[in-house]
């Protein structure tokens, strides 16, 4: 996978790294058991401070998406979501959809956009089904 960081962006770099890894998980480009580069290595590739990459990995670990081990570094490992997850996520989705709504996008447009985004995600849902 290719991670693209925009340096002048108002969004912090660690957030950009975290978001792109989440997207790669959704599209199936990253799967359970896949390794991520070591923090220093990835930071060197970008020419940025390795604490930035550390912060992104810590965030992903707290979210239960990767596991950090001393031996094999960062490995994709999806854990079942905590009970409050769905409610939290709905709150954030609500704001995001509201942004489109107040700008005058129609219900069908918004629905079509959601549909097409979901279609871009991996068809293989075996990993998520066992939690539902």
């Amino acid at each position, binding site marked *: *996978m290719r991670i693209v960081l925009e*340096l002048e*962006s108002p969004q912090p770099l660690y957030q950009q790294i975290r978001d792109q890894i989440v997207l790669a998980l959704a599209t199936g480009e990253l799967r359970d058991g896949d390794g991520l580069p070591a923090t220093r290595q990835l*930071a060197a590739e970008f*020419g940025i401070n390795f604490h930035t990459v550390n912060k992104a990995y810590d965030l992903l670990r707290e979210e239960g998406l990767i596991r950090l081990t001393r031996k094999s570094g960062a490995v994709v490992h999806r854990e079942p979501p905590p009970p409050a997850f769905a409610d939290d996520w709905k709150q954030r989705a609500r704001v995001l959809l509201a942004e489109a709504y107040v700008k005058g996008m129609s219900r069908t447009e918004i629905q079509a956009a959601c549909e097409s985004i979901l279609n871009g995600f991996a068809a293989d849902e075996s990993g998520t089904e066992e939690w539902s």
Partner: protein
Amino acid sequence: MWSWSLAQILVLLVVLLAAALVPSFTQRTLVFGVRVPPNRLGHPALQRARRGYYIGLVGIAVLAIAAEAMVDSHLFNDLGIADPVILMAALLAEFVDYYLCHRYVRKVKQEDDWYAGQRQVVIADTAWMSGDRGKGGVWLVWALPSLVILAATAVLGIIEFPRIPEVFPVHFDLQGQPNGWAHKSVLSVFLPVVLQLMVTLIIGSLTALAVRAPLRIDASEPNESARREWLMARRIIQGVWLLCACINAVLLWINAVIWTQAGRLGTEVMMAVNVIVAVVVVAMLFWLYITARTTRESGGRHADFSSSQLQATGPQGTGAVDSSSGHPGRLVPRDDDRYWIAGVFYFNRDDPSVLVPKRFGAGWTFNMARPLAWVFLLGILALPALIVVVGVVASN
């Protein structure tokens, strides 16, 4: 001697040829050590800078050859310092020539604010990091000739050791006449082997770092630039190992003559050594030039990628980018000029890399903000000093 000043002129021409080829080795978005966004690559100021650079090089060549011809007919040359002085002056003049072009491009870039409104990005390819680069061990095949020659020299030394006389020549003048002798000891006999070992170790550890050095992917042509940079990196590493094998072979050859004949080296041998080194350096230059040319041509002159095009090459390519700024725009390599002193010396405390790709020329340079870089620099500088010290100790 006429033949020696001719050799010196050839050395000067090779040095100037290398300087003339350097702009073609470099990434297209780097012009005289200044980061230029892709949409400004056709700017007339860049053409002007290039023309000025080549005119400067021709001027330096004319002056250096004239100086060479002058000292040739002068007693001054008997001291043997004229040639190195002219060579150093030519190298310094080359740098000044480069620096003037660098300053000019930087000035135009700042005045016109070339990066205004451009979306600067850095890219990492994680599949490549754990894939192709992870197979760095494959390139050790190229180290094999150096290691075999090193082992052969050690074996030859052990076989010949009993037959080497108590006092044997260790230093030769340019005509190959011995002018320094040493008493036989394990240290004095095996010093050249130690030398080979040190050269091989330094080159080995530098190539190990170079393989791990970051790949600078140009966002405006991500696939081509990644392929090109990695190919250039491999070519340079292969070339450096061949150069190391040549150094080791020359040392083996000299030792074979010293150890088995215990006598003079002869003018032919000295000439041959110089010719071999010159041929290898010129061959490497052309190898790199051809690599740079062919990869650039096959890469083609791509139009600027928009973020949506980049997204098409990787499913989630620029998700974060899109959500942050909202408007699609051209992605361009980051303007990293602030970390480069004079466009050639890298100093970035945040960057954990020790070696990074050079900005003017082929290969890598040290991140001066990393202590390990200074360890390497001292090691490289200490090697010749160590040779002199041990040589003096061994001959006393």
